């Protein structure tokens, strides 16, 4: 394996695919989501009694619980699948790079683009809320904490939905069921069953690093949650990479 060729190849993919994800037409949808979130959080701020607590609650429920898996599904589920369907993947698969290496290029591009978009939406909501409620150091701390959680979430959910895009022809349908039923519904059920969702593990980390809001009351072992998230991410990445290597592209 020529290491230099692989590094340049992955770098080329990162530059090209991140730009493609960030600049395609879905960018308008991201702007609309950001505007909607800003409107909702801005309005909530006008009714708020405890700004930090409620701001954190809104960022947790709107950004972490809802937008993180949904945006990861929309971008991750369609990324490789679209390239396979419109055959623009030809340049990638006719290159001398091992398919598993090119899968890494897709994955990292997705993580970067997804994180950027999530942070833009988060910032819009956060700004609208705390401009009305009152900006302070703790508010900035909340923004940073949720930014970290969203970036972690982008790594985990990208590995899930990118792999789903390789393994399943219509990943969006199964992904929606997973996101709403498993992560959304099961994840919100009190008790041990919620521990089997990715979201619960991310929120356990959140309980450690977020200073305000209902998320701080969540109980769990941070080290175990971190280990679970790493294992799930790596396992799903490896599964996706090997499935991609063995995928026929007629």
């Amino acid at each position, binding site marked *: 394996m020529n290491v230099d060729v692989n590094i*340049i190849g992955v770098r*080329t*993919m990162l530059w090209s695919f991140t730009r493609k994800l960030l600049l395609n037409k879905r960018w308008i949808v991201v702007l609309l989501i950001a505007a909607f979130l800003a409107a909702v959080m801005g309005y909530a701020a006008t009714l708020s009694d405890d700004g930090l607590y409620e701001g954190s609650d809104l960022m947790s429920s709107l950004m972490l619980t809802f937008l993180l898996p949904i945006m990861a599904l929309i971008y991750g589920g369609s990324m490789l699948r679209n390239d396979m369907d419109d055959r623009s993947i030809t*340049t990638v*698969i*006719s290159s*001398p*790079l091992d398919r598993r290496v090119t899968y890494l290029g897709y994955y990292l591009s997705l993580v970067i683009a997804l994180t950027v978009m999530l942070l833009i939406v988060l910032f819009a909501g956060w700004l609208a809320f705390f401009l009305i409620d009152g900006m302070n150091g703790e508010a900035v701390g909340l923004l940073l904490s949720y930014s970290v959680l969203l970036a972690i979430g982008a790594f985990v959910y990208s590995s899930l939905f990118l792999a789903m895009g390789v393994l399943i022809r219509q990943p969006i349908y199964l992904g929606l069921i997973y996101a709403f039923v498993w992560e959304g519904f099961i994840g919100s059920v009190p008790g041990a069953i919620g521990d089997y969702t990715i979201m619960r593990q991310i929120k356990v980390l959140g309980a450690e690093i977020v200073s305000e809001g209902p998320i701080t009351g969540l109980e769990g072992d941070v080290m175990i949650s971190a280990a679970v998230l790493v294992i799930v991410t790596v396992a799903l990445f490896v599964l996706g990479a090997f499935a991609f*290597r063995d995928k026929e592209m*007629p």
Partner: protein
Amino acid sequence: MSDAIILARELSKWYGKVIGLNSFNIEIGKGITGIVGPNGSGKSTFFKLMIGSIKPNVGELVVMGHRPWRDPSYLREVGFCPDYDFLPSDTTGRDYLRFSGGMQGMEGAKLSTRVDELLKLVGMTRDADRNIGGYSKGMKQRIKIAGSLVHDPPMLLLDEPFSGTDPMVRRDLMDLVKSLHHEHGHDVIISSHVLHDVERLTNSVGLIYRGRAVATGEISEIRGLMSKYPHRIIIEGKGLMELAKQLIDRPYTVSLHLAPDRSSMTAEVSMPEDFFNEMPDLVQRSGSELTQMRSLDDDLESVFKYLAGD
């Protein structure tokens, strides 16, 4: 052939119940080689197997000493131009070539210089910074070929590069392919469903029909092989009975079928060149008056059916 760069032995590929290639055997040496066959004969399947995008079900395929499935390392020495449109419409021609080069491990000034060279070679310098979505079919074909050349590979796989292009573009692309071999030293494997197109590029061809290699070698040998098989010729006019009597004794005549009204006749002949050479004399001797004479086998499909023994 000891210097074969591509070797296929009993190679088979099927998609569900559809057969793409069926016990396909071929050896391809250096130079320009044409793979000729009608649409759906398995040409593109063979090309996809050669770049490892699909996996053979049965048989062996060796490309430049490598088995393509799961081993992309040899693709540094191969440039691939598929028959389908895969170019991203929202990217410029230059950016696409830069991306292709990057995927081959090229970067920086070396890549920029190479991209400029290629744009000049395929005559796309002026339109290089326009989005591919606005390109004509011919321009897209040129950019696709340039993309396959970006890393200067010794071997090029061009799948139907002339498909859908007008005669002028076709001529330019043919000149380009010839120069890629004669001036730049690339070995080229090119597919087409038009034998005449390939004949203008090379003498070396492989004929493929229904997933099988029905003939390989020099075009002259293949033409000889083709003439061993009976061709059907329709003859129309007056006095065909007398002409039939003349024809029936000829060594190349396989069968004759006169229409009930005697206004037309179908002659099945094994050596069409001899038949056409002697026809003026035979017509004169028989006193027939012909209004039309045409071969039913001018289309490539019929020729392939003969060669496949259908």
